[in-house]
């Protein structure tokens, strides 16, 4: 049949198996994700809470500190931008944590280990699917979702910030996703049972580790920061808005600089996470027995 199948041919066959074997789970994950997104989109309270948590600039307070209005009622809402990293992270983590599902049960593991393809091909196809193909597929689907919901939103008299393939914000999160999912892949190769829960937990752990590392870096560069004000991501004031309040006005920190902190942190994470964890994941995969 194929006397001299090339590396590329085998990778394509393996990728086809990877998708076909788990297609129902992938479809279910995407369906649930977009159903939740749609529900959130049409639920004004959820949209406002989310916008309030992430974009505190849109909150107008009176002198006594009470909210008098949410400025996003008038301003274009950032629903699609705000939800993108969260949806990508949750959906991606579920998909990545399913990577080694066929190696959970013994008979299936035995079959897949003995399938004629090299160890690196079998492992690499999972990396390519989880870290490259799926996120891009998700991005396309998310854009379609955004296109449709813009129209619906306008019909309801709401205005939204448009999402674009060229938006650096999107690509920044695509890049972060690449790092997070390498960790989830590593976890999935170690914990094949309940891999979804463990994968998502590991991803969340990595996310908070990233935030913590970034904060440490900020303190290193700006030691005069007051610790009690570093309330974290979900605080009412929010981390970014604090930076703006304390140092933006003095011209010490620009928006680009805050992104730079994220990027420095992410670079450190990538060096440890991407290279280190992926290597560990491959070694673990190599050890699979049946």
């Amino acid at each position, binding site marked *: *049949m*194929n*006397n001299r199948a090339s590396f590329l041919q085998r990778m394509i066959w393996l990728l086809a198996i990877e998708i076909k074997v788990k297609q129902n789970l992938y479809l279910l994950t995407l369906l649930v994700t977009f159903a939740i997104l749609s529900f959130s989109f049409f639920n004004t309270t959820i949209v406002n809470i989310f916008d309030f948590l992430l974009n505190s600039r849109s909150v107008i307070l009176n002198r006594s500190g009470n909210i008098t209005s949410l400025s996003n009622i008038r301003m274009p809402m950032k629903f699609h931008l705000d939800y993108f990293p969260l949806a990508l992270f949750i959906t991606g983590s579920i998909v990545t944590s399913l990577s080694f599902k066929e190696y959970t*049960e013994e*008979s299936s593991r035995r079959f897949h280990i003995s399938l*004629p393809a*090299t160890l690196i091909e079998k492992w690499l196809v999972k990396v390519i699917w989880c870290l490259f193909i799926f996120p891009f597929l998700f991005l396309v689907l998310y854009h379609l979702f955004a296109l449709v919901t813009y129209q619906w939103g306008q019909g309801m008299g709401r205005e939204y910030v448009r999402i674009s393939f060229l938006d650096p914000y999107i690509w920044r999160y695509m890049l972060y996703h690449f790092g997070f999912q390498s960790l989830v892949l590593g976890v999935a190769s170690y914990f094949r049972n309940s891999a979804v829960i463990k994968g998502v937990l590991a991803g969340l752990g990595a996310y908070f580790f990233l935030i913590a590392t970034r904060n440490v870096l900020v303190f290193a560069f700006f030691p005069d920061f007051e610790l009690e004000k570093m309330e974290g991501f979900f605080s009412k004031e929010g981390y970014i808005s604090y930076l703006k309040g304390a140092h933006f006005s003095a011209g010490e920190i620009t928006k680009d600089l805050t992104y730079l902190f994220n990027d420095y942190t992410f670079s450190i994470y990538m060096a440890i996470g991407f290279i280190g964890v992926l290597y560990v994941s491959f070694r673990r995969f190599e050890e699979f027995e049946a």
Partner: protein
Amino acid sequence: MISVEDLTFQYSSGENVINNLNLELYAGKIYGLLGKNGAGKTTLIKNILGLRRPSNGIINTFGYNSSKRELGLLKQYFFIPEDPFIPEVSVKEYIDRYASFYPNFKIDTFLQLLEEFELDRNIHLKHLSFGQKKKALIAFAIATHTPLLVMDEPTNGLDIPSKKQFRKIITHIADEGRLFIISTHQIRDLHSLIDHVLLIDEGELIVNHDMMNIADMLSFDVHRTALKDEDVLYQERVPGGYLSITKGGHDHSLEVDLEVFFNAVITKKETIIDLLNLNKYE
């Protein structure tokens, strides 16, 4: 050719399953791997195929170190385990997914074998019984034309006509110079196929003999009453009398009864093995 040198396999619990086993297997033969439950048969197979890695020793399968699981090795064999993995897809989908990986897979052979096993080529695997799924897998395995075909309890789940069909097919393809390893407890189903016996007991290979060799050294005869002869190595009650094993083959001897031979080796290990080994090296 497969060569197993000083194979020792130990579970992480410290339990030794195989002890210092040496073995050479050659193409063109059907090896029957026998042994009690837990004797180490499946573990030996898994080590040969690289599914498990030895605690000690080296296994070379068709020129490849098994524990490295190189692509070259994986192309050399197809393994049908006792509880095979059969996805819930149509026969066509199964072929589309997996056949490409086997360089010598022949669709014509596969379809012909499906026909011989009376299986519909358009059927969905989830609608088949366990025995039918196994037949479909056996057909696929044979159609891969791998030089090594390993089967663990291949006749489990097969009905009587299918067992006969299975023997016929294996006998037919055995001439192609492939190497077969068949691990089984269903000796009566397969004894006519096997031309070399490997018997493992407590992790040690205690019998490694050709059937012809065994037939030359031992006689299998049925008598109405139990023999009291000193030459009787072993005997057991069978319908119509006693089946006895005596030293030295003779023209009137029955063909080797593998089940009785197995019982004889297990119960009178030293006597039988000493006799077989003595004649082997003479």
